[in-house]
């Protein structure tokens, strides 16, 4: 009997395909459809509304007469009135700020660590594993962990600041203060993901021939000059990938924000994904949420495409 038929390969990937379709493909394809409808809270009724959901978003980005502030990015709409008018703009704003902060704390710090520990030797290997370790924790666990550590006055971090005599930081509401919430979450994010970027950069550094570094040393370069003038430029393809991962990661972030804000993100801790979930499932406005998802997906798609196109276009570095 012949076991192998021409359709066997398709049969083998069928289970994965079914799961993928149910969980990702179909919902993704349904998003544009939903974005053109209005649902009631029970999700039972779908009414065609055309582009109304998109139109509802427009005022957030258009300065109307008498509107409280200009919608420039990186400037928070702060007053309640302002936020009520521009809640999505504010989430998007936060998300962009968060992106820049994670570029610093995840990618930047990962690069810094890679420069320190990308050497031969068991000790350095141990450090790499150590820095990577947070990656294997669930973000929910990480969130809870840090929430405990950051609790004003009694948490580990505030107590530390108390110990070194900075009273204002001892009582600081790290996660509830609009001035520090986003920064704090970004640093926690960095604690988790820097190790991941460390591994990527470290692999990139290993790929650079040793003689290039040695030639630079003999040429008179200090270790720092070797890093910035030789190694870092030669890492540019890795850096490109890391930046891309960080961009997409920032607009997919959810868990940390949800946990650290007690599942009730404030206007200053809302980012696009948390905002979408709130709109879709707490307010039952699936159509409006889908419209937001469509817009943000389009923006990320364009940014990513430009980035990839620029990466492809430049000449390849050969070692």
């Amino acid at each position: 009997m012949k076991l192998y038929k021409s359709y066997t390969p398709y049969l083998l990937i069928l289970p994965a395909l079914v799961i993928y379709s149910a969980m990702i493909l179909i919902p993704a394809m349904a998003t544009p459809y939903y974005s053109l409808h209005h649902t009631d809270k029970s999700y039972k009724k779908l009414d065609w509304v055309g582009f109304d959901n998109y139109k509802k978003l427009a005022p957030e980005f258009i300065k109307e007469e008498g509107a409280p502030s200009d919608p420039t990015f990186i400037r928070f709409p702060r007053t309640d009135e302002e936020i009520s008018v521009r809640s999505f703009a504010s989430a998007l704003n936060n998300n962009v700020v968060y992106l820049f902060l994670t570029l610093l704390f995840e990618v930047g710090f990962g690069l810094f660590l890679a420069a320190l520990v990308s050497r031969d030797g068991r000790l350095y290997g141990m450090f790499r594993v150590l820095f990577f370790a947070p990656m294997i924790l669930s973000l929910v666990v990480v969130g809870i962990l840090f929430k405990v550590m950051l609790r004003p006055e009694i948490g580990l971090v505030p107590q530390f600041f108390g110990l070194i005599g900075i009273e204002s930081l001892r009582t600081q509401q790290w996660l509830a203060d609009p001035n520090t919430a986003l920064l704090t979450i970004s640093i926690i994010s960095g604690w988790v993901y820097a190790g991941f970027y460390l591994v990527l950069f470290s692999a990139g550094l290993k790929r650079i021939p040793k003689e290039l570094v040695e030639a630079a040393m003999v040429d008179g370069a200090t270790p720092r000059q070797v890093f910035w003038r030789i190694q870092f430029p030669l890492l540019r393809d890795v850096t490109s990938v890391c930046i891309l991962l960080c961009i997409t990661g920032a607009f997919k972030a959810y868990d940390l924000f949800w946990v650290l804000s007690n599942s009730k993100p404030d206007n200053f801790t809302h980012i696009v994904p948390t905002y979408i979930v709130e709109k879709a499932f707490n307010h039952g406005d699936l159509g409006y949420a889908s419209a937001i998802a469509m817009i943000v997906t389009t923006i990320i798609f364009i940014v990513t495409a430009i980035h990839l196109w620029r990466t492809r276009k430049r000449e390849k570095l050969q070692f």
Partner: protein
Amino acid sequence: MGKVTLESVRKVYPSGFEAVSRFDLDVADSEFIVLVGPSGCGKSTTLRMIAGLEPVTEGRIQIAGRDVTNVHPKDRDVAMVFQSYALYPHMNARANMEFGLKIRKTPKDEIARRVSEAAALLGIVDLLDKKPATMSGGQRQRVALGRAIVREPQVFLFDEPLSNLDAKLRSKMRVELKRLHQRLRATMIYVTHDQVEAMTLGDRIVIMSDGKVEQIATPMEAYLKPASVFVAGFIGRNKMNIFPGSVDGGSVRWLAGEIAKVEGPDRGNLVIGLRPENVRLSREQSGSGVNGTIDVIEELGDELVLSILVGTELIAASAPASSGFYRGEEIFISADPAHLHFFDSGTTKRLEL
């Protein structure tokens, strides 16, 4: 100026492997020294210790009268040309050459002057705006040389710089390197596994084997008076015939016969060497001589290389192309005693009888 001194330098790698043991060397100013030996004998390790890229386990290294044993490579004022050229891939040729000077904050016009001089000297003016990836091996080689030259260092270090080039380009670059040395009058330390390169380039050569120095001598000395069996076998275009032998009542016994007569005391336990170009061939027995049969003839145009079967051993000998030897011919081998090299079979060191 560019003197280099190695005092009892030793290198043991962290793995416990002793790559270089007790290396002593005095390199005079503007001398061209070649470290030569088979692959894995510790040449690169020695060079890298001089450059500061490999820590020294024991001993001291001085450059230009300064102890640099524990000095960072950047502060040693040496330039190095790597086998792989090690050009910075993201910089064009000009930037590659300027790199070391910019790092040292050399004035701009001085940098420009040196780069254009070196480029003219090496014939790479047209390459200056090109990136390494778009250059041929020979071009990269020149840029790597240029990068070293513009530095005007105390000492140039070369680690097999020609071995990635094809044979023709290699001999061309060899001549150019020699000319460059004569022109710059700089101290150069050059590593190669190719004894022809060593012989043609070196003012003196250091022959190494298994991390030990076998001999430090001029190429001619190493050829005429190899200090050990290893050197005897390593140096020379045609490999020396080396077999055990003895001296017995003035008769040099080699390959179960008398190859020559010498004056001197009896000696057993000898290793005796004779270069193919020094093998005396004759069709008739006259005086000393061992008898053999021509097994293979290689014709090289101007000369013949004969493989002669003596008993069970093969002896190489060279003869003029006009000598008319033919395969299967019976022949007698003998030697001028002055051409025989005697070594102690225990220590393998040279003996003067």
